């Protein structure tokens, strides 16, 4: 009997690509791109004279160069643009040194700061990037330059990977986790450990005890929020505040972070996962301009 296996891949989030059909890239002076090869997802962003033109957002495979190429191909799809038409490509993210067509690799912290500045405007002061396998708290100035930062990539607690593990354990689709975690009458005590492995065994125990899925998810989202708030507080939070990365799409975690900080996060106007690649594309443009000036 044929079974629909995708419906059982609870961790699988929606991949997407987009381009602006009203923009003619051929008229642009500088076509720049940023490719963010993360631990879980890869994005390619193409900008024409600093304006967002096209992007793609997909899962990272086991082969970093291939993931970068796939993301780029998908962003280019339907645009009539070829890789050679892009003047400068910057690679960022975990796999940044493995983007074969990138002229330069830039750390994801600088790119996220710059990208958040583009997405949320110059009032943004504090950015929390909740990525696939790490968590970054960044303070930025009005130009998108990093003022201070703190990154936790030693452990997967408070990251997308942790959430994927939970979605799988509970059999709840990852895009539904956030909403479902809010369907509790009152907040349960948080799971005591955010370490994904420990939290998973703790959650299994709670399920056996008879806790409904909603309550277990609430307990985990709460623990995750609490953990990243700790990181943010170490850095100091100043409004405006925004969250980027995949977890920014999880209302269960976002609302609990907001509650604990007593600060509202700005509502994103773009896909929160492409912030790093946007920053990369903006740096690519700036670097090319700098190069041209020297000549």
């Amino acid at each position, binding site marked *: 009997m044929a079974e629909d296996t995708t419906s059982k891949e609870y961790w699988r989030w929606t991949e997407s690509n987009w381009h602006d059909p009203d923009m003619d890239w051929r008229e642009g002076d500088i076509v720049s791109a940023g490719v963010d090869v993360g631990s879980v997802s890869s994005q390619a962003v193409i900008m024409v004279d600093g304006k967002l033109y096209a992007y793609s957002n997909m899962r990272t495979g086991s082969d970093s160069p291939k993931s970068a190429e796939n993301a780029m191909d998908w962003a280019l799809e339907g645009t009539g643009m070829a890789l050679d038409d892009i003047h400068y490509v910057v690679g960022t993210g975990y796999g940044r040194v493995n983007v074969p067509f990138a002229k*330069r690799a*830039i*750390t994801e*912290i*600088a790119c996220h700061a710059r990208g958040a500045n583009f997405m949320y405007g110059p009032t943004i002061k504090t950015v929390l990037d909740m990525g696939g396998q790490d968590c970054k708290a960044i303070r930025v100035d009005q130009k998108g*330059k*990093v*003022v*201070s*930062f*703190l*990154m*936790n*990539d*030693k*452990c997967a607690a408070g990251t997308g990977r942790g959430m994927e593990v939970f979605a799988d354990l509970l059999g709840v689709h990852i895009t539904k986790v956030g909403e479902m975690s809010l369907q509790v009458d009152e907040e349960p005590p948080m799971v005591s*450990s955010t*370490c994904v492995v420990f939290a998973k065994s703790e959650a299994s125990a709670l399920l056996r005890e008879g806790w409904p899925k909603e309550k277990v998810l609430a307990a985990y989202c709460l623990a995750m929020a609490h953990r990243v708030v*700790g*990181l943010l507080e*170490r*850095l100091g939070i100043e409004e405006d505040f925004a969250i980027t990365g995949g977890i920014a799409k999880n209302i269960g975690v976002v609302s609990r972070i907001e509650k604990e900080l007593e600060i509202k996060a700005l509502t994103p106007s773009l896909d929160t996962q492409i912030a790093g690649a946007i920053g990369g594309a903006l*740096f690519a443009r*700036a*670097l090319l301009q*700098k190069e041209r000036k020297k000549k």
Partner: protein
Amino acid sequence: MIANYGYKDGSGEYFISVDTEKCTGCGDCVEACLYGVFEVVENPLDPLSDDQVVVVTEAERKKIKYTCGPCKPVSDRPPLPCMAACLEDAISHSW
């Protein structure tokens, strides 16, 4: 810019902070550290400038609790070599 290198795990928070405004990229801390925690590179957080600053090496970022351990006895802690070497007072430890 304050760059915090390190991590937080179940046992605590371990961060070495470098104030890049103060850091001149002289490399005195690199020489002072017996365990190779530091290196001087082009500022990775500001790709448009060519400033040299000190960073904690990629390899050490996830284990500084252990690498820095020998310099941090529980009682009578002497001044840390990296901090003592820095005339600009650009380095600090969170633990």
